[in-house]
């Protein structure tokens, strides 16, 4: 048998973790060992993992700080949900409908990524962060102001109110401004979520290890040096940014089809959400795909597991966040870790044995 390279092995471990986790959850569910609370959180876990992995492409691989990831998720969620609602009578097979909705969501979010990326990626650092944050908020605001309906004459669109749509009596309002979309078919489930997560991982991991990925990382490490050896900076930056946006769109479609009502609140599509995803990426290790996935799962579960502590759980979450950052980055924390690191302890043992 051919010996596997180190990266291949590491990638296989990543896929393996997902598959094993999926099997464990399925077994627990089938044997009835899972509480309804946990069952309800399985699909969100997949959504957050996809979001974290896709944001890692922008933050970790491209090295640009984006605070508007939830905006792309919002685009994907709403376009996907509108598509599903429009075609709910035309396409009877839920799987096919979801697949098409997924494609619509991914394409729309990807196009948004390109449109936003072209002007924005000229900026750098904190300016880029604030502009992406602004874009996320604009998308959320626009979605809250849109009215969209359908009747036998076709599709109607307005920014004012539902009466301005001028629908025929048999028409249905699909997006009702701030009330969002109600009655989306709940086509997604845990299995679909895990499959999507696996696809996301395959796309991102293969991208990172390809020629394109190396070009993107070269831009991250030294933009000017990369440019001087002939790497087209704009092209690769926009490529990475739009792939990341498209994958966030996929997570959005999954989100929209998990619950039957969809509204754009600050909680789910505002900057708070973008920040939460960024926290997953940073705590998982910037640039580590597996890390951001695991961090997303743990940090989503943590507040749920702390539910018994009710009022204190977000406080504990905040303290944990600060403590981890100080432990990993402060000089004292690093010294402490080096002193008691596992590898060093093992090495010392070896020396003693010799």
């Amino acid at each position, binding site marked *: 048998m051919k010996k596997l390279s180190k990266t291949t092995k590491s990638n296989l471990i990543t896929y393996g973790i997902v598959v094993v986790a999926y099997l464990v959850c399925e077994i627990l569910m089938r044997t009835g060992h899972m509480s309804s609370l946990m069952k309800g959180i399985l699909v969100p876990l997949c959504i957050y993992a996809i979001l974290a992995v896709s944001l890692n492409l922008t933050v970790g691989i491209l090295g640009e700080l984006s605070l508007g990831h939830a905006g792309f998720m919002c685009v994907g969620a709403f376009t996907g949900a509108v598509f599903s609602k429009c075609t709910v009578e035309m396409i009877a097979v839920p799987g096919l409908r979801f697949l098409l909705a997924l494609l619509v969501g991914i394409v729309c979010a990807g196009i948004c990524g390109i449109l936003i990326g072209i*002007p924005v990626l000229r900026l750098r650092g904190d*300016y880029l962060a604030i502009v992406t944050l602004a874009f996320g908020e604009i998308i959320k605001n*626009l979605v809250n102001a849109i009215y969209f309906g359908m009747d036998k004459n076709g599709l109607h669109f307005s920014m004012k109110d539902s009466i301005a749509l001028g629908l025929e009596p048999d028409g249905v309002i699909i997006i009702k401004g701030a009330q969002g979309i109600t009655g989306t078919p709940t086509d997604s489930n845990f299995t679909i979520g895990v499959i999507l997560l696996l696809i996301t991982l395959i796309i991102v991991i293969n991208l990172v290890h390809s020629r394109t990925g190396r070009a993107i990382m070269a831009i991250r490490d030294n933009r000017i040096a990369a440019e001087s050896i002939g790497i087209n900076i704009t092209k690769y930056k926009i490529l990475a940014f739009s792939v990341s946006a498209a994958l966030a769109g996929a997570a959005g479609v999954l989100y929209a089809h998990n619950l039957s009502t969809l509204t754009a609140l600050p909680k789910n599509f505002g900057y708070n959400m973008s920040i939460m995803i*960024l926290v997953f990426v*940073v705590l998982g290790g910037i640039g580590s795909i597996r890390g951001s996935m695991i961090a997303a799962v743990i940090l989503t579960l943590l507040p749920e597991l702390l539910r018994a502590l009710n009022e204190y759980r977000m406080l504990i979450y905040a303290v944990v*966040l*600060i403590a981890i*950052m100080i432990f990993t980055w402060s000089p004292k924390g690093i010294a402490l870790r080096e002193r008691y690191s596992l590898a060093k302890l093992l090495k010392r043992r070896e020396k003693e044995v010799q």
Partner: protein
Amino acid sequence: MSFISYLLNGISLGSVYAIIALGYTMVYGIAKMLNFAHGDVIMIGSYVAYMAINNMGLPIPVSILLSVIVCTLLGMMMEKIAYKPLRQASKLAVLITAIGASYFLQNIALLIFGANTKSFSSVVNMEPIQLAGGQLIISGETIATVVACIVIMACLMTFMKYSKAGHAMLAVSEDSGAAQLMGINVNATISLTFAIGSALAAVAGVLLCSAYPALTPYTGAMPGIKAFVAAVFGGIGSIPGAFIGGILLGVIEILSRAYISSQLSDAIVFSVLIIVLVVKPTGLLGKQIQEKV
């Protein structure tokens, strides 16, 4: 007439943004970090003033002073505990710590003061001025806010220009390593910056809640973000920039709320920011820094 009154409202809101943005921009200039918790310091300041006035029955000037003191201490403490160990860390790590601090303050406030909306009574006891035969009414809050903003701006600029500590701040923000070699106590300077920024946040909080009285643990979040936008708008790190950015942002927000759409006002504010940054990537008054190879 209604246009002028909207304009005045905008300038008033803009002055609050400007005061917050001054704190933001000073901290950014020195510590090179986005202090996401700045907005929550505003909220804490408002709660302290609210408690002092309503529960302890202190006179208003004493309450404001108390709020300023508490916020100053809070800002210095935050810097000492959360940010100081991370001086050499990556930018993202500091950002996440600031987010953690923001969550922490919000949830502490939630635990202590509860989730109920508190109705903040205005600290300004001034009769509204009526102009043009009662057609144009300028509220006391508007005048107090604008005056406070201009006074604070003037004081800060004098401080930066003429005091030794101000010079130290400028030096640290330009090159902290070189400043240390010249004998400047960098840690003390950063601590002082946080203290000033947080004191300004307390003033801004009291003024903000006098104009918009609903006080919850999340009151500070959105003004904090808007003020940050204002600071970027004017060119982050620049004090006059923060002032101009804040005023412009407030005026744009109120005018678009009045004439275009109340729902889309935030979207319009953010779009203007994006247009400004795309045309002039370092903000209105920001300095262009040439990158070296």
